[in-house]
């Protein structure tokens, strides 16, 4: 396994390569895609990208947690969390690509 880490830069480089826009505009577009997805999730919407996966927002109830080091009880407030469910295609490609 190569274990590289890709960033926004690599995604905009791919857009630059594939679509032929300037590097600058490619970077701006990558940013707007992430921005629109975030804004939609913050509104509580589900973001469903076919053949990629689904991001959904879930409400978590308050509960009593514990500091694992001190054993002290700490209240955990109700909060919203994001979950991602990968598409079949993504699961298949990830499983096939990383097969020993």
């Amino acid at each position, binding site marked *: 396994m190569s274990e590289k880490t890709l960033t926004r830069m*690599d995604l905009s480089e791919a857009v630059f390569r594939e679509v032929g826009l300037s590097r600058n505009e490619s970077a701006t577009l990558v940013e707007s895609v992430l921005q*629109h997805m975030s804004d939609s999730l913050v509104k509580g919407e589900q973001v469903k990208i076919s053949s990629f996966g689904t991001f959904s927002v879930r409400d978590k109830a308050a509960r009593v947690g514990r500091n694992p080091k001190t054993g002290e009880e700490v209240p955990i407030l109700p*909060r919203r969390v994001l979950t991602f469910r*990968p598409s079949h295609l*993504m699961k298949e490609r990830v499983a096939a*690509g990383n097969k020993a």
Partner: protein
Amino acid sequence: MIRSELVQKIADENPHLYQRDVERIVSTIFDEIIEAMARGDRVELRGFGAFSVKKRDARVGRNPRTGDSVQVEEKHVPFFKTGKLLRDRLNGKE
């Protein structure tokens, strides 16, 4: 929001681009993430989240219908961790 609505929003903001180019831009971004994970790489998008690959060890599973035990092979699965900024925004901390 679904993929086509995302494409529409980007198209509306970029009237100088053809719709089909916007579709290619959006597909390129998502395909690139999948390809990276298929190679075992991570994709870290600060503020949004990080996509990575997790290994699931081989195990003895059970056929829920018959109760027979079956050998399940080691496999790799996609994983997403929400970024701090987005997590905070979801909880009203801007």
